[in-house]
């Protein structure tokens, strides 16, 4: 792995195994398909002569949530806040984690051997953001969808073609599309191919990384409806990453709001949208444009932009842009507390 200490004796926070045990381990609860506990992922910044590690980008810095079977969790936040890294780290797609736990069906994902991980991959899939660059231009669609199915020997050779036809049909693709190449399809159709590729393996859990951001409004609606139908049909669990709050509200059961690698607020969709508590969530929601020309705008405009995750502010990470900032926010990092049942917020304002 790339996390080698360049110079001897130099200590980088998080690199020492002793530092990592900062969390209290959770025990498996069967109603949750996924339990994420204090997950951390730091990327090293290389620099200097011997390309030593000179710093760390704290992309995900202590994220905790549980995901119930058959539900959808929305993950929202500005670009660069670590939404995508969270999704990828859960799937063990970006190397080793820096700390924390990821329990998928009760098993720690990062403790699996390569062989076990390989079979686990069929259970957890991802739909990528950009349907234009995530499909190989040199493979016909049938091969794109079927490659992993054949690799994992999910169906026998005799049933293979029928199986692919069935998967494609479920995702709104025609059987004759199989011989075509991705460039012959429109954006919406390509996204359907991406969805078919993920679902062909019969997964339980799918990370949807901004699946509709690159699409037009009318196509967006088609894809969202398709995702919802498939969820009912196959009892899928989604982690839906998006920066479009109206889409998240529509599709999710629970919502997590991220800021600079932290989950600042987490709860049921109705609670979060009806009663946002964290100042950042409030600002984020007030910035959503409403399709009504006479709507009263009580907008909280955030000053400045998101600080660098390589050098995050001390105390509460949001204090540099927060309107309710106190001296305490600058010095002490807040901890997660439950304000209403099932509604968690990380902010000093809600201390009793």
């Amino acid at each position, binding site marked *: 792995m790339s996390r080698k200490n360049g110079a001897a004796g130099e200590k980088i926070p998080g690199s020492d195994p002793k530092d990592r045990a900062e969390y209290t381990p959770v025990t498996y609860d069967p109603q949750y398909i996924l339990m994420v506990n204090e997950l951390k992922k730091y990327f090293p910044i290389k620099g200097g002569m011997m390309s030593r590690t000179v710093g760390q980008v704290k992309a995900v810095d202590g994220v905790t949530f549980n995901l119930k079977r058959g539900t959808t969790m929305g993950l929202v936040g*500005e670009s660069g806040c670590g939404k995508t890294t969270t999704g990828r780290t859960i799937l063990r797609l970006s190397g080793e984690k820096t700390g924390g736990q990821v329990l998928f069906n009760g098993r720690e994902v990062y403790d699996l051997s390569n062989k076990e991980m390989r079979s686990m991959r069929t259970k957890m899939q991802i739909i990528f953001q950009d349907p234009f660059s995530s499909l190989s231009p040199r493979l016909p669609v049938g091969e794109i969808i079927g490659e992993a199915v054949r690799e994992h020997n999910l169906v026998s050779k005799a049933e293979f073609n029928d199986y692919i036809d069935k998967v494609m049909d479920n995702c709104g693709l025609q059987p004759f599309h199989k011989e075509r190449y991705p460039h012959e399809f429109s954006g919406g159709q390509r996204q359907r191919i991406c969805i078919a590729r993920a679902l062909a393996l019969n997964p339980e859990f799918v990370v949807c990384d901004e699946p509709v951001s690159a699409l037009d409004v009318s196509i967006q609606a088609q894809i969202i409806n398709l995702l919802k139908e498939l969820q009912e049909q196959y009892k899928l669990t989604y982690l839906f990453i998006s920066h479009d709050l109206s889409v998240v509200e529509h599709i999710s059961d629970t919502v997590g709001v991220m800021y600079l690698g932290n989950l600042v607020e987490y709860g049921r969709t109705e609670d979060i949208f009806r009663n946002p508590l964290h100042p950042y969530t409030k600002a984020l929601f007030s910035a959503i444009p409403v399709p009504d020309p006479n709507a009263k705008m009580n907008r909280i405009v*955030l000053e400045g932009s998101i600080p660098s995750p390589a050098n995050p502010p001390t105390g509460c990470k949001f204090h540099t842009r927060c309107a309710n900032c106190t001296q305490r926010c600058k010095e002490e990092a807040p901890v997660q507390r439950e304000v209403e049942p099932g509604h968690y917020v990380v902010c000093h304002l809600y201390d009793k």
Partner: protein
Amino acid sequence: MAKRKAEGYLSGKEARRISRENRKITNELEKKRKRKKVPESEYLTKMHDPNNAVEFDNLHTYFFTDAGTVKSVDGVSYEVPIGKTVGVVGESGCGKSVTSLSLMQLLQRPQGQIVEGEIRLNLGDKAVDVAKMPYEAVQHLRGNFVSMIFQEPMTSLNPVFRIGDQINEVIELHDGEGKSREDMKKRTIELLEMVGIANSEGVYQMFPHELSGGMRQRVCIAMALACNPRVIIADEPTTALDVTIQAQVLDLLRSLKDKINSSIMFITHDLGVIAEMADYVVVMYAGRIVEKGTAEDIFYHPAHPYTIGLMASKPVVGRQVDKLYSIPGKVPNPVNMPDYCYFKDRCEMCVEKCGGEYPCEVSISPTHKVSCYRYYEIKNQEGGDVS
């Protein structure tokens, strides 16, 4: 293979024939545009209403491609009044950007050509028809009278020049007569401050990669405003930005518009942004305008089935629905458009007449016009004329 041919795959022979014909047409148009010393009288014109900054009148912009002629803009007419914001909405590929590029004469030539229609631009004491102007003359309009904010702030700035030099260049080219380097720098710093960049002296010396997306878009806006243009075309200026940054940029555009009293053509596919920014809204579909009116007309009384579908398919915070409406089917192939209403195949409110030729524009209120057969009857009953 047989199936592929049936779906519009061209044989080599056919493609060569098309490109030969295209070349004949485009060469002729190019020759006309490249003439030197064209008398001004040829493109001087009069505004139909002196309160308008721009009038598009029956504009046709075609692309002569090797697969056939694509009618990107096919008979588009609308006005941009002085000091107002006009929002243009539509799916990608509906011709909203091509309309604005026609106004700037920035079309991909020689394939892209304005073949018919007028674009009248109000220059204050006179008016010109941009569609007939030779290439050299348009250079004096860009920046001074019309300027553009592009969609991708990441790609529309040159990565190898400093921010200050890039803005200076705009001033030098369009408004630089008698100005020294120091004057230009002063103006550039002033512009950077105007768009809300606090560290303007520092940013002047920076390269684009040192700035965040929101900051880059601010620089692009500063560049567009450098010579106080009368018309600003904002081509999806916030699509690449986060909601919080989007709110900042929209606030900025609104306040700047009042400060320099110019008109904005706001192109986007986000209905929420349009509702917030626009006084008038134009809805485009497959190269034609299907509906236009004030923002209230469009958002409170949408008339065309496409507009209604577009509104219903966008999830809105606070409005819970079980299933989102989605417009069935897809946009027709731009090379051979049907000869009936372009939306008929996707429309769920078809009436018998829809099989006829493309519907004309019907006024359903003094400000609200729609191209749909469903409104012919209402009009006829009132005794109005269908024009």
